[in-house]
């Protein structure tokens, strides 16, 4: 967002935003991983992360945000789409129909026995696309004069 001509006193918002930002992001990541068993998933997680980013955007401005997080959100959208598509395609090469997921139980270091599921990769694609498009739209509208 562009800097207002009149300086606004938003020290409280800015200070709080930084702390809240991390809380929301951590919560959104939790939401993302929780998806398969309890409420959550890539879509909600992605929206939550973008909400956190929007909070930063409101508290500071788009230039600051771009300096702190130099991410090309259009690239993010594209890579998210590619990840989702590749997840769908992997089963084709194994001779199964498009978008057939695979899963199994694995013993992971530190985490113990966990179920790994290709759906998580698909969901990661959704997650990235959602963040990418939200921020692309908000940034382009916010930056245009």
């Amino acid at each position, binding site marked *: 967002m562009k800097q207002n001509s009149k300086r606004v006193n938003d020290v409280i918002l800015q200070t709080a935003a930084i702390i809240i930002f991390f809380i929301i992001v951590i919560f959104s990541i939790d939401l993302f991983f929780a998806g398969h068993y309890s409420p959550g998933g890539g879509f909600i997680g992605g929206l939550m992360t973008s909400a956190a980013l929007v909070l930063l955007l409101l508290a500071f401005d788009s230039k600051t945000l771009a300096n702190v997080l130099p991410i090309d959100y259009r690239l993010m959208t594209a890579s998210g789409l590619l990840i989702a598509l590749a997840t769908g395609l992997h089963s084709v090469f194994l001779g199964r129909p*498009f978008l057939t997921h695979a899963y199994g139980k694995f013993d992971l270091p530190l985490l113990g026995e966990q179920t790994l599921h290709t759906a998580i990769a698909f969901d990661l694609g*959704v997650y990235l696309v959602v963040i990418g498009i939200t921020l692309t739209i908000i940034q382009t509208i916010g930056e245009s004069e």
Partner: protein
Amino acid sequence: MSLLHLAILLPLLAAPFIPFLFRGMKQIHTGWFVLIVPVVLVTYFAGFIPITSAGDVVTETIAWMPSLGINFTAYVDGLSLLFALLITGIGALVVLYSIYYLNKDKESLGHFYVYLLMFMSAMLGVVLSDNMIVMYMFWELTSISSFLLIGYWYEKERSRYGAQKSMLLTVFGGLSMLGGIVLLESMIGSYSIRDMVTNSGVIAESPFFLVAMVLILLGAFTKSAQFPFHIWLPDAMEAPTPVSAYLHSATMVKAGLYLVARMSPVFQESSVWLWTIAGVGMFTMFWGSFNAVKQTDLKGILAFSTVSQLGLIMSLLGLGAAALHYDGMDDNIFMVATIAAIFHLINHATFKGSLFMMAGIVDHETGTRDIRKLGGLMTVMPITFTIAVIGSLSMAGLPPFNGFLSKEMFLKATTKVFSADFFALDTIGILLPVIAFVGSVFTFIYSIMLFTRTFMGKAKFDQLPKKPHEAPIGMLISPAILALLVVGLGFFPNVLSNSLIKPAVESIYPTLVAQGQEVDVHIYFWHGLTPELFMTIGVVLLGSLLFWQMGKWMGIYNRIPHRLTLNGMYDGTLVWSNKAAYRFKDNYMTGFIRSYLIYIFVFLSGMMLFSIWWFDMYRFSFENLAEIAPYEYVLGAVVMLAALAILFMRSRLPSIILLGVVGYGVALFFVFFGAPDLALTQLVIETVSVALFLLVFYHMPDISKKEVRMRFKVGNAIVAILVGTTVMLLSFMALTNKSLTSISEYYKENVYELAAGKNMVNVVLVDFRGFDTLFEIVVLGIAAFGIYTMIKFRTTRRTKGEGAHEAKQQTRQ
């Protein structure tokens, strides 16, 4: 996935690496990497020659969409192998040539070779697919890659024009062909070409036989640039010369010929088939050669000559159908037409390929292709001159080159109409040899023009943009190989007879082969004082006379006004359709979102109310409903009040906040009804969209300082009430009319067994209905990029206002 499928897809699989090789290895020309692909493929396909010449076929299938009868079946028989060898063989030579033709420092080779490889796969797919839907897919892919390659130098207006023209015409034909394919499938219940051939009797009895045939032929004629669709080919010459040599003379334009040859067993019983193809082909042969003579651009001459030669082969394929009806002696005289077609197809690829490369060399070394400026290059470019002479004389049909042999066979086939007593061939059919003769005369003239105007005559080197010199050796290798083939096949034509020509002809006549008729391919130089020999002598004499007296009759070309030419008509149609579209669009596209919303809402509720009335679904009962808790009343009241209050707000900010209240209220409803996922989504969406609204309004102009209350508009109120009523009715009815059991039971039972998940909503999103999600994120991505481009373009337009104006003008034209 078999090796054969891999071979078809190899160029496509190699394509993604090309841009990286182009960027990463600047010092090596990217073409050297690309060259590996066609060389590997040509050796691979050469391995099939013993199989097909023994009369066997190879079939490999992978299931693609078995439930729709669409499988990727690769099928190698004589005909498809011949084309596969042409595609990969000429492909290798063209890639080699392009390495010297395209400068690695100036051109964006990454794009070029990606398009070229895309084309190679597509073309292999066309000729090796048995399933017609798969073939259609590859067919359109050739059109797309051709479009990209013609528009390769997209800064040039002519390139864009040519690319668009070829795209419009060939895709029009492709779509017609798709219609024909669907009709054929409806007759026999299979998309397989082999099934169509076996069931050709069923197809012949269908009432849609002719429609299907015409649609399929439209596809073939547009692709192979037959009259009146030939007009795209000369404009396609804006492509780089290697592309013209490859796509627009040797391979892609022959896809139509392939299709006709391939579908011959299905349709060739019909007299319409014979007459349409022979007639259109013959006229194209004449018209192309007639127009080639007036061209001044070397590539223009070659383009029209390609049109003419394609017509020649097409007419031969048409005449070949007569072999089925001929029951004279044991030696089937009409088979010579098909043999000639296949033989000329090979010959044309050799001499036209070398001529195109010659034209490219001349252009590259002198800077122009205009024959009015060229001349006398013989002394400085002796090797190129030799290649040009060999190619031109072969094209003119003179001995001892391969063109002479196939041309003689062509003339022989046309004279055979006298001995046919069916389909009125012996009456009106007499026109065929006459047109063939006239066309050959013009062919002779432009062939002679081609090398005399360029290499002989007075040298005018001062008029040339560059100082001419002989091309580098690498550039000469490919045309020299082709020229050697022209000579070699001229002297030893029978090298090909049993290995390539015979199997290909046999695949065109499966019924005759089944009856035990022998396809006998013997090509001779000398077959006595036959009519065709006298025709050739006549062509040479008359052609030389006309060439000598050229200035006296060239005036006839200016007789037709541009408006009435085919190109004029094409341009006129484009302008007219653009204008009509704009006029239609301006009627309803007002530019105000409020009007669009009204269209959408009126249509929505209109459709819904109509179908409720039409299907008589207007019934609902309020039994079996849950008790409404007091807090739900409160929440409902809050949501309604907030929505109503928006109408009475004077400024934007409170409106946005009230809108947020509505949204959060709905989210709370989700919480009450036990849908945590929905509630979460709704909450976050609401938050983000309130922020978005704020942003948008922040940038909106303050239209007036004193913000007045929105005026009451009767029309809007009616629409709003209508939509509200419709939605309410629908939701009541959705509760009452349950005709099918809900799918949620299935999800509940299988969510853990099938998808190893416990959250049903999320499993539905990523697994059960993952396809929906995939498309949804694609749509979201498109929306985001759409907003991005719209806003960014607007800002660039404002800085360079003239560019925008120009762009608008161009779209209007």
